[in-house]
């Protein structure tokens, strides 16, 4: 029987990284990512993990070290949050374009200013177009499991792309959750050693990321887009394989009580479990509501998403970030765009809530359902409603 233990989620992730036999960990501390990297440094210091631990002077350097390490063929892990992810920005595109399969946990946190260390999705939403595969965990077990999955997908011969696993800062990273730990032998079965296609080695010289003149640049970028879109198949297969070996099942889009649902909430990350409670309470009152949560954010699973929501009349999309200047949140924009060509589609109402650690209680979902219904009846409403804003 697998062992189920109470463990801080950050520690769980570090233990998962250990089981993946990473070669290089390069990081700079930023709240709330710190516990993951601290625990990894302990594992290296204890001799439990034979890896190069490189505590550098900034996130910009951390991801650059990661790029260099991955180019030599190493298995590379890093973690960051918020401003740290933003500081990595320029390198993130380089890593995906060079097809370097780095795995990074992002403990999602708000962006400055004002400085705020608490949770929302502003950091990763600003990086949604970096060409990385991006998944979201809703609880500690998922954060743990998605780490193995990330390495497996990233290093797949057909993929060769970096992966971000998103976990909500504090609400996931710092809480103690029951985590079913996996056996090393099973991890070895699931995740073979990395077999890089191209590496830096004088015996077999290559040139990575040289100047791309207009005659080749378009093709290089197109190649990245095709690789990312095509990676979905591998992402799904890797979850199927995960189920065979570890018994837990994951899909790009997950549903909760959506069978007869007329109104469906759409969420990402740990707020999903609160949304489940809200759905349960609403169901008790006889409301036909359900929940869809997005686990695979990039590449966006358009088909799976449509199949999950097509019977609903109303969608209430909860964003944890604002896409400034578009009058909406990024997830809402994505979904509206995804549904645009569909003949039969639900009314989509956007909401933004829970910025910078503001709590989202179940009552907020009751509010959402009222607003979304009345908007759908009238057929008009502001594109998105920012909930729980003090106006005076």
């Amino acid at each position, binding site marked *: 029987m697998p062992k189920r233990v109470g463990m801080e989620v950050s520690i769980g992730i570090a233990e998962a990284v250990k089981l993946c036999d990473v070669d290089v960990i390069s990081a*700079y*501390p930023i709240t709330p990512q710190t516990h993951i990297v*601290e625990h990894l*440094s*302990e594992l290296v*210091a204890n001799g439990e993990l034979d890896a190069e631990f490189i505590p550098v*002077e900034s996130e910009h350097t951390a991801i650059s070290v990661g790029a260099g390490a991955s180019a030599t063929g190493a298995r590379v892990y890093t973690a960051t949050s918020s401003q740290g992810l933003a500081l990595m920005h320029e390198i993130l595109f380089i890593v995906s374009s060079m097809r370097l399969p780095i795995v990074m946990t992002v403990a999602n946190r708000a962006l400055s200013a004002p*400085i705020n260390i608490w949770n929302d999705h502003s950091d990763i939403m600003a990086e949604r177009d970096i060409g990385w595969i991006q998944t979201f965990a809703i609880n500690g077990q998922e954060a743990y499991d998605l780490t193995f999955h990330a390495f497996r997908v990233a290093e797949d011969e057909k993929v060769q792309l970096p992966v971000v696993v998103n976990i909500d800062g504090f609400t996931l990273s710092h809480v103690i959750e029951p985590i079913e730990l996996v056996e090393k032998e099973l991890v070895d079965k699931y995740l073979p050693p990395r077999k890089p296609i191209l590496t830096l080695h004088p015996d077999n010289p290559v040139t990575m990321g040289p100047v791309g003149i207009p005659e080749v640049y378009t093709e290089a970028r197109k190649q990245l887009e095709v690789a990312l879109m095509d990676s979905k198949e591998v992402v799904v297969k890797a979850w199927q394989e995960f189920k065979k070996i570890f018994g837990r099942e994951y899909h790009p889009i997950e549903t909760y009580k959506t069978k007869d649902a007329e109104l469906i909430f759409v969420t990402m990350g740990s707020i999903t479990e609160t949304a489940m409670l809200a759905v349960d309470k609403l169901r008790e009152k006889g409301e036909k509501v359900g929940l869809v949560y997005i686990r695979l954010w990039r590449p966006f699973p358009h088909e799976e998403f449509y199949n999950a929501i097509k019977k609903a009349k109303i969608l209430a999309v909860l964003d944890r970030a604002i896409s400034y200047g578009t009058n909406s949140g990024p997830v809402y924009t994505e979904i509206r765009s995804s549904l645009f060509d569909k003949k039969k589609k639900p009314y989509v109402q956007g909401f933004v809530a829970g910025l910078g650690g503001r709590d989202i209680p179940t009552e907020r979902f009751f509010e959402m359902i009222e607003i979304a219904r009345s908007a759908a009846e009238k057929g008009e409403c502001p594109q998105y409603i920012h909930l729980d804003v003090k106006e005076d």
Partner: protein
Amino acid sequence: MRVSALIPKYPEPETYMGHTHYCPGCGHATLHKLLGEVVDELGIRKRVIMIEPVGCSVLALKYLKFDGIQGPHGRAPAIATAVKRLRPESIVITYQGDGDLAAIGTNEIIHAANRGELFTVVFVNNAVYGMTGGQMAPTTLLGQKSTTTPTGRFAEFCGYPLRVCELLNTLDAPVYLERVSLFDVEHILKTRAALKKALLNQIEGRGFSLVEVLSNCPTNWKMTPEESWEFVKNEMTKVFPLGVFRDK
């Protein structure tokens, strides 16, 4: 009558509002107070614009009655450069820790110093990343334990403690570089004098001044405040010798 009523009350500087969030025994509050005293003495409070950093002193502007702006991590010298050039009549101070100035912002401080920007830097070196929970900083001593060097810092993997005053002393432009500490009254008074000198350099238009203050971190060093000041006095000063490196 309560005994406390018999103890003479020393006047608090007008600029310093006190009641800080810092851990018991931390040097930041002492340094804030010194800075407040010096600013009051020089009568420049209404001219000061302070750039506060990312790190434990992220709330410095809550305790010091200054005009101010929050600098992104390590970028205070860049912001200060602009503020001083566009408001030359103001007194511009950056207050930065070692995680901010000597790690993520090393390039900013070197280039601001090299351009000889006319602002004053208060650099607090406590050999650790305090705010994020005690990870190794570039200034961490060899052998010193931190949450990312649980068996101590080894030069082989993590290099050597970075000496900022010595590094900046290779540049032509800076006019004043001094390393001071807060481990006893004598050195606290020396720190006060250094802060005053650094601010006077700016008031009189001489050039770039930096005061490096060796401070403590009892929480992350896992010491009592007394032990931590002993560590500063006996260990840190061996690696980071006190004194004036530049005064021209």
